[in-house]
């Protein structure tokens, strides 16, 4: 078998994939507990509009995606979790994908590039892209570690956290912004349509075998990083779509942990 590490493009893909695969589930843990598993998907749509806007003005796509996604995070953060927020969420998200398509077609973007934004193109990264992704992943890890305690309090019991003096609204905003960072960081590796899977799927797998929140986060991060590495290697050896291979590896990890949990007699966590 050919050694994948002999190729520069595989080295870059592995570094970027493993970093974002490890960072994404750390944010996913809080998103899942707050029952906002699909928020990443929605922000991915917004990032698509950002990429389109950037292409129109010949700016780096990551910059456009980051700007617009963070702006959407702030707007959504202000909406809070009121019932009306659900509808405005839908408007923002569909508007995002429609605008993205509009901008990208105006900018004359080819189908391959467009597919790269939606489904990732980890084998085409240069070291500059990898540095960007690494920066975003490290920012996410540092923020999660610094905010761990209040984030857990809010994810677990928002009302009690408020009475305990936690600034719940600010924390919710911070969490949405972290989701935005993960989306933008994961875009080049797995694409906007699949990056949320890296937040949620490893956590779902980890929740079946862990006994604590911290344990779930550590297991989730490990499963995310391993899925990225294994998925990329599989895609190299068997000529598969890299992002599909990464996400399907994470889903396979779910099946394995579900089997482990039921063998142990522990109830499955849905």
């Amino acid at each position, binding site marked *: 078998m050919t050694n994948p590490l002999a190729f520069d493009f595989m080295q870059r893909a592995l570094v970027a994939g493993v970093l974002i695969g490890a960072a994404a589930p750390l944010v996913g843990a809080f998103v899942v507990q707050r029952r906002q598993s699909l928020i990443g998907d929605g922000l991915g749509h917004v990032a698509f509009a950002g990429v389109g806007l950037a292409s129109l003005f010949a700016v780096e796509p990551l910059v456009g995606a980051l700007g617009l996604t963070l702006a959407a995070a702030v707007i959504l953060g202000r909406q809070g*979790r009121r019932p009306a927020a659900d509808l405005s969420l839908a408007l923002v998200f569909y508007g995002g994908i429609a605008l993205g398509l509009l901008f990208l077609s105006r900018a004359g973007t080819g189908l391959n590039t467009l597919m790269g934004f939606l489904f990732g193109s980890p084998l085409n990264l240069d070291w500059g892209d990898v540095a960007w992704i690494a920066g975003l992943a490290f920012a996410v890890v540092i923020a999660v570690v610094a905010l761990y305690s209040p984030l857990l*309090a809010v994810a677990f019991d928002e009302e*009690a*956290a408020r009475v305990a003096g*936690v600034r719940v*609204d600010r924390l919710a905003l911070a969490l949405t912004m972290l989701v935005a960072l993960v989306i933008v960081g994961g875009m080049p590796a797995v694409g906007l349509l699949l990056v949320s899977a890296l937040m949620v799927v490893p956590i779902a797998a980890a929740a079946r075998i862990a006994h*604590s*929140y911290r344990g779930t986060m550590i297991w989730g991060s490990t499963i995310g990083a391993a899925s990225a590495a294994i998925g990329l290697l599989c895609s190299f050896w068997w000529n598969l779509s890299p992002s599909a291979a990464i996400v399907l590896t994470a889903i396979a990890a779910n099946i394995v942990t579900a089997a482990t949990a039921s063998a142990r007699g522990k109830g499955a966590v849905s």
Partner: protein
Amino acid sequence: MSAAPAASPAAHGPDGMGEPSLVALDRVTFGYGRSTVLQDASFAVSPGEFVAVIGANGSGKTTLMRLALGLLRPSSGEVRLFGTPVNRFHDWYRIGYVPQRASIDATIPVSVDEVVRTGRAAHTGIPRRSSAAEREHLDHVMELMGLDTLRRSPVARLSGGQQQRVLIARALVTAPNLLVLDEPTTGVDADARVILREALAHLVTHERVGVIYVTHDPEGFAGLADRVVEVQHREVVPCDDPSAHGHSHVEPDLEPDLEPDLEPGAELGE
């Protein structure tokens, strides 16, 4: 921990002298939409006092507590905590709150220790780890609530009574001066009721914690309460014979099923 807020004369105890009331609601009115739940209701608790709040299901007991804790804003009247208007109150560590609930929602596994520590979330983080005194207090609270052997257990595996003790421990972890318990014996077995009674007796006698005990079941506080009040016909009135108010006592349902995230415009911002 910061110093106690300067006492304001308006919120002093019933005699207008000495320490301010732990909580004081003065002619408070509140309603959901067109239905008025409380009208010119007044209620105060002095330091070290155990006050039981009874009333039929839907009479407005939980609304009264949520107003007292600043989770709802009254349409008229004033709420003070430790002499400070609730919107300017910052010393939340002085209050422990055990919300009414059926069971702990643990989509992701969370250990007893982790849940209890979230009670201190506003005061901890990587920049400030817990001190030796705080760890000692945590051990004390765990022992008091009979949780010392369960600290590493996932809460989802505990009984209803054990879960309730976890939530009470979370409320006690900042060594509060006021403990607010909303229906603490819901879904709790007989053994846990005994532990709860002993713990409350200890807190009142040895630690001079003021307690507000909200319930529709007068058995839970018999022999503990200094004073019993009833939420009745939109007011808070003294109650001389709580045993007359059993489960059969029913009032028209003024209080909607409380879903904290869905109240129209009633949530407080930051």
